[in-house]
């Protein structure tokens, strides 16, 4: 499991529109943080490095997203199955 966080910058023209946050919030592997102006912090929990990279690009292509920059990346392997099991037990 790869965990990373990013800062999404919205296009100036759509910075006041909140739909992008709603779209992001519906994606299970993304956690959306508090928006600051046209900047939205997110945490991405992807299955592997390739998946992480794919999400990076998909988010970059979302309407209204101007750019995505990286704040933090973890390369540690966290077994996703085991993590899910723990979650369900909790």
């Amino acid at each position: 499991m790869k965990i990373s966080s990013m800062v999404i910058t919205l296009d100036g023209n759509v910075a006041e529109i909140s739909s992008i946050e709603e779209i992001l919030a519906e994606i299970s592997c993304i956690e959306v943080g508090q928006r600051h102006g046209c900047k939205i912090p997110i945490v991405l929990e992807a299955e592997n490095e390739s998946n992480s990279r794919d999400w990076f690009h998909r988010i970059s292509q979302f309407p209204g997203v101007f750019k995505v920059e990286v704040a933090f990346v973890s390369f540690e392997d966290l077994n996703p199955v085991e993590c899910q099991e723990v979650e369900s037990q909790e």
Partner: protein
Amino acid sequence: MKNQQADRRFFLKTAAMAAATALAAGVARSASTTPGGDALPVLQDVEWNKAPCRFCGTGCHVQVGVKDGKVVAVTGDRKADVNKGLLCVKGYHVGMILYGEDRLTQPQLRVNGKLEPISWDKAIQIISERIQKSPEKFAIYGSGQWTIPEGYVANKFIKAGITNNMIDPNARLCMASAVTGYIGTYGVDEPYNGFSDLDHADCVILWGNNLSEMHPILFSRYMDRKIRGEKISLVDMTTRWTRTSQMADHVLMMQPQSDMAIANCIANQLIANKTYSREFVEKYCNFRGPDGPASLKGVPISFDEYQALVAEYTPEKVSKVSGLSVEELTWLGKLFGNPDIKITSLWCMGMNQHTQGTAINNLVHAIHLLSGHWGKPGDGPQSLTGQPSACGTVREVGTLAHALPGGLLVANPEHAAKVEELWGLPQGRINPKPGYHTVQMWEKFCSPSEEKDSIDTIWVQVTNPGQTLPNLHKLFDPKEKLKNKFLIVSDVYPTATTKLADLILPSAMWVEKNGVFGNSERRTQQWFKMVQPPGEARDDCWQTLAVAHQLFLDGFAGMKKKDGSFLFHFEDKNGKTVPVWDWEKYYDYNVDEFLFEEYRQFTTIKHKNVAPYQELVKARGMRWPVTQDKNGVWRDTAYRFVEGFDPFVEQGKKFQFYHSTTGDDRAMIFFRPYVPPPEMPDDEYPFWLDTGRVLEHWHSGTMTMRVPPLRKAMPSAYVEVNNEDARKLGIRTGDKVKLETRRGELQLNAWIDGRASCPPGHLFVPFFDENLLINQLTLEAHCPISKQPDYKKCAVRISKVG
């Protein structure tokens, strides 16, 4: 165990969100937000330490998280002025470059065509014997990715030890024209300004520079201001439509090489419209004209002569050469003629990889000086570099064939004497004859050994010439059949260069060793070793020191100082000799610090004072000149030659070019005429071929092709074809096509209107793919002054295969 993992996952996510939230909040306030706060993710058992990113010349700082001897996390460094905690997509993957499956882990010698493992002792002995056999035929080919201590050791090894000056770096291929441009104009190399210009400019002009993909974090600094609604505009002067063009306010699609005519046209208009800065010019500038194609310093001309020379570059005439409309050229003239705005010009390979690279660098400096758009924050010209230490290791340490550390020259007797004094050498040890520049070095290596002045042995460090040299069929491939040639390659992965290597040495990389880089804005950046290199891989710096010591033991005179001691003799604080050649004890000491402090002495000679090593340990890079204020605090310099910023400018001078080539504190405004490219499309080869980089891959792809997500995102090279041309030729995206130039041919897939698009008659191919070597087709023609080749334009034909 499961609960531990759940906790860890929770902590990681919390830490990740905290890092991103802090940045979003900080950056949202202002692009010029003062960086600060440690605010490192709190993760159990993870130790954080700072390092500059391994990739481009921007010099973003990252915090590297290490656990159990392995890099496990990377975060942007919030204390770093350059990137303010953010990273681009390549920085995202920088921690993974260490862990490709095919790292080189032991020395290998080619025996009867096959590589066989050998010991380090044997490898060192082989190199030493090879040098002693014919030292005059030995050369080092280095890199803008060398750390400063690595480059310093290699430079001293060659200039003081071997004494043939046969050392040149790959940076000759990427920024040599910027060097000569700065020296011709200001009398001394490197930008006077820095990235903070992007926080102050009203207009940013890109001269053939795809900033959004090549220097994404710098582009972000511009775009953050734009998005916040600040009045700032972007002019993209380009030969192809790129992602940068998509964001630009004005896209000026020019013909290759016509940047020279455009710059002269701006100068002409400034004078004709009387909108040049008469006060700035009269107080701070002299004029220079050409006295031949290879004249670095030019000849004096008067303002009237300059006016007459640029007069022919009317918008009407230049429109025909450049492809820009008269209106666009007139608009540019008015833009520079407006004293109420601040203009930042940026450039990189588009201007530097140019057969008139020095000239176009001079010309862009000239229009800024002439218009007075110079010396104020946000108002000036700046060259960007593509490698992390092209400035630090190549330009400042002087690893070019003609240079010595600190901006000194081998051919200058006073400089040579000073170097001999500082290195403890006998008088006359420094050879005044420059060695071969890169193209010449590889021509001589690919020439028969019997030829006079041939090079027989090259030691390549931290670079991949088998992929990046131009015209590879001429400058690299012949080596295979020349039996007396010996190629030594120190690298981290197998490359196009190691394919022909006779001896391969496995190197440590990035945070597997101590290091110091120097970025594009004179910022010197230090880091410590954080993890062990794999197998028997060792520091490049140690490799050179070990060979030097072997030569010393074998009695090679050049490796002795005049007192008979070892050329790289250092003593610890107890007066005990530091065994820099002994790998087992190498990290008992900080060898980098000894080397850097010795090097630092040179930097004070031409006002390039770098900070003491221990100050760099505390900082996120410091821009030289770094001097102590009256309270003993070390201060770096945002703007050179500008009073109030540069401590070496005398009070009341306002601007002082204290290394002026005319000795009167003035900068040079050059006239350089437009010169057509050496090869242009014709009936036989009707297209232009441009080569360059892509976002996912860094240079020859040695590191980024080992990062699976990057390789997956861009697995192979392609040729970018204009939609209309493709239709005429019956080519669709994905079709196999053949490109042919006078030097070679290559088959690859077409990409039409993909990420970028070429205008009709133009093709673009990236050079990252070692299986599709586009440099078999490029031209080795180079700038007569800087000797930097032009990878951006040659004639090519294209046909569909099958």
